[in-house]
């Protein structure tokens, strides 16, 4: 398998960096030195168990040994390489590049991300200018008034023998149009002021900005518990977000979290969690507290030091909340994997969906996920149906042989899974390998 190709080289590299002899490392992980030598020269596949032991002794994540810098940098460098532009990077030597020049690799990755942000920003600004009806209307107003003023003023200035009645009429027109022009200019200035504020946030999508802020606080605010200061106490933090759109998202998030804290008061919730033999079954908790299942999902994922990840999507499947959990790569911009149980739940409101899923990669990562979809009708019988689905993601040990799991991915673009029936587009990883 192509991805395994250089695992041995990485083991060797890490071993030499740590100044451990082959014999010592072999002894520490319980294999023979000659076998380790074969591994280091990429001539033997490494079992998950040996890989895990090697990783422990070398003090690195197994995933990093298995896939090189499997994290964001590697993916982004790979994506940058595939885009390529005019150049033809040596894809077959990417691991070497990542390993030998981690700083440069980070720079390439960072620039790739930055270019993506900038492209989105340009597209957004373009959209704004060409499709914004307010801007069109404001410009049309100003241009019309200017046309009239220009034409009328020229007539008054250049027609020496103008009839007094006409002159009075044109003066009147000038007055009206200058008023119109003043209002039009004000509208334009207000508009441009607004877009300037948003322009400096263009570097990050509002949702990413919010997520970065929440991640900084470990997705939890004590102030939102009952008796705390509530969302108002967070006003300063919210104000610190660069874009107006991110501030709106943050405000909504805080209000929701405070509402959840009220529905499931901390002490009672923790007591119930401790008592629950299933370690916090969301359906049973929802029943016990008489609240919506998604409220329990959020409370579980956003409680202090919660390990669970959480994704929430709307009826279109767009992810509105992305709390990550290590190893379960969440798509940044693309649509998520259609095989996520989240989407089974979305199509079957109120029915619980639980599954063991496997993320692709050499080190297979498994997660126990529970998904649920709630339907609301904010405008009653006459209004639209709103669906919200959520999926709690918890790390799970390697499944036993008789345990079934669902093979899933992150997003097609960065998913290496071969022969997937749900694939939307080719993977840049498969191409790169």
């Amino acid at each position, binding site marked *: 398998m192509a991805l395994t190709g250089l695992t041995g080289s990485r083991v060797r590299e890490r071993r030499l960096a740590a100044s451990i002899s082959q014999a010592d490392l072999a002894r520490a992980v319980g294999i023979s030195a000659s076998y380790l030598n074969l591994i280091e020269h990429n001539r033997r596949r490494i079992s998950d168990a040996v890989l895990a032991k090697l990783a422990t002794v070398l003090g690195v994540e197994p995933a990093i040994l298995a896939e090189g810098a499997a994290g964001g940098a590697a993916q982004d460098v790979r994506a940058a390489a595939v885009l390529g532009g005019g150049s033809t990077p040596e894809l077959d030597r990417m691991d070497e590049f990542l390993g030998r020049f981690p700083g440069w690799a980070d720079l390439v990755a960072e620039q790739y991300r930055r270019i993506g942000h900038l492209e989105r920003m340009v597209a957004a600004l373009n959209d704004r200018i060409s499709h914004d009806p307010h801007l*069109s209307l404001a*410009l*049309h107003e100003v*241009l*019309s008034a*200017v*046309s*009239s*003023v*220009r*034409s*009328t003023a*020229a*007539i008054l200035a*250049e*027609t020496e023998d103008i009839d007094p009645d*006409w002159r009075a*009429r*044109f003066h009147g*027109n000038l007055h*009206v*149009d200058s008023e119109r022009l003043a209002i039009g200019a004000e509208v334009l200035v207000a508009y441009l002021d607004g877009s300037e504020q948003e322009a400096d946030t263009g570097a990050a999508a509002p949702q990413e900005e919010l997520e970065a802020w929440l991640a900084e606080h470990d997705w939890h605010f004590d102030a939102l518990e009952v008796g705390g200061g509530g969302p108002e106490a967070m006003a300063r933090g919210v104000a610190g977000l660069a874009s107006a759109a991110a501030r709106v998202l943050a405000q909504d998030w805080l209000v929701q979290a405070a509402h959840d804290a009220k529905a499931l008061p901390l002490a009672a919730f923790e007591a119930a969690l401790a008592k629950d033999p299933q370690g916090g079954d969301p359906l049973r908790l929802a029943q016990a507290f008489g609240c919506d299942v998604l409220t329990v999902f959020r409370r579980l994922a956003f409680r202090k030091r919660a390990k669970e990840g959480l994704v929430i999507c709307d009826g279109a499947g767009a992810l509105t909340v992305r709390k990550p959990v290590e190893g379960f790569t969440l798509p940044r911009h693309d649509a998520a994997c259609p095989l996520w149980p989240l989407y089974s739940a979305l199509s079957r409101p109120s029915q619980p969906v639980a599954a063991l899923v496997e993320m692709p990669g050499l080190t297979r990562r498994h997660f126990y996920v529970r998904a649920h979809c709630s339907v609301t009708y904010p405008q009653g019988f006459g209004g639209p149906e709103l669906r919200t689905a959520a999926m709690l993601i918890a790390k799970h040990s390697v499944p036993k042989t008789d345990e079934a799991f669902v093979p899933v991915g992150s997003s097609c673009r960065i998913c290496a899974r071969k022969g997937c029936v749900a694939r939307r587009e080719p993977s840049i990883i498969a191409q790169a390998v």
Partner: protein
Amino acid sequence: MGQCDGILTAGAEGMIVAEKEGCAMTGRHVLLIEDEPNIAEAIRFILSRDGWQVSTYGGGLAAVAQVQALCPDVLVLDVMLPGQSGHDILAELRAMPDFAHLPVLMLTAKGQGRDREMAMQGGANMFMAKPFSNAEIVAAVRSLGAGTNLKGAV
């Protein structure tokens, strides 16, 4: 052109001012379709002083009927009109044998790009972005009028 025989004193928007008898080709009759009354008034003034007979109409909806009724020698057509856009009006006119070759000057407040392209593809003879100068309008209408005469002579 049998229907071009009415005498119009007021249009649907109350903007029709000029009168015209029949469809005699004087070569000096301009119809201005423009919804901004002050712009229309200014253009009417400067074109009148240049010796043109000027009719104005301030709406989009019955614009084609106005052209049919007045048979102008030159049409000055705004793009942004209430009811029906200048592009649609032009397309309708170009589909009529009587007006397939009517010289049309299009005016728009959106100076460049798509509107200009659409106007040219739609068969406008000239295009002018607001804000225009009076001299430009006079020159444009004169040259379009001269083109008509030339065509008529051939």
